[in-house]
């Protein structure tokens, strides 16, 4: 019996499948946002900076259903039992990543309301957040079997 997490019926009916589908949205949006912001910094193009901001905004919003479905998957699949090992690391890193994504969005949001340019240190925060997101996704891939031999 094989489960396809991208099948609409699976997404709607399976109690555990939504998280592994939705997680791709904040990862892709945030990664694209970091790239756009880096290019905006290098080229001084306003359009790239705008694209980066809206990528960060939607990435931050999309972390909400991802966190919700992740916690629901924990409740449905494991009935909320105490986590340890890779599962616990994944949960902790997921919260850290979420906070960092929202922090990046907040820095950009605040910068848009002020006349002075965005602080350069934001790029360091963005790269650190990207590393956290990557590490979380890597562990998630192991847990789901995507990064493993299965």
């Amino acid at each position: 019996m094989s489960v396809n997490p991208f099948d609409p019926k699976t997404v709607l009916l399976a109690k555990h499948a939504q998280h592994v589908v939705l997680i791709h949205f904040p990862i892709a949006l945030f990664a694209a946002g970091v790239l756009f912001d880096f290019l905006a910094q290098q080229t001084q193009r306003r359009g790239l900076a705008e694209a980066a901001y809206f990528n960060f905004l939607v990435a931050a919003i999309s972390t909400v259903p991802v966190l919700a479905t992740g916690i629901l998957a924990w409740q449905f699949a494991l009935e909320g039992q105490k986590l340890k090992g890779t599962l616990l690391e994944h949960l902790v890193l997921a919260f850290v990543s979420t906070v960092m994504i929202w922090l990046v969005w907040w820095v950009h949001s605040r910068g848009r309301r002020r006349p002075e340019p965005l602080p350069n240190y934001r790029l360091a925060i963005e790269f650190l957040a990207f590393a956290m997101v990557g590490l979380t996704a890597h562990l998630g891939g192991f847990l789901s079997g995507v990064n493993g031999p299965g």
Partner: protein
Amino acid sequence: MIRKTVLIVGLLATAMVATLLLSAGSPGSSAKTAQPATAEVKVDNFSFGPPTLTVPVGTTVTWTNRDDIPHTVVSTDKVFKSKVLDTDEKFSFTFAKAGTYPYFCSIHPKMTGSVVVQ
């Protein structure tokens, strides 16, 4: 006198042989104790091995996680359910009734197996 000594030695020897025979046949002897049946399933490489296990009634099946990531062993019919098993952790269940018991890993539902109890 000699005849009396022979008689005593004979009686003692008989008593010793009888004691040895009785102790060998006692219920506490390990030779005749029935060992409970056991069987093992290895959880490795995102699969249960063997995927289908056939055992007699009363067998205790032990699942051992040999994978690097956590797995669970959950009966489809809710007969048994393990906690999350990290690497080298075990879960055992004794099958008291005949039947077919399908199970899966709740973290990776594509991992399935079954125990056939006869």
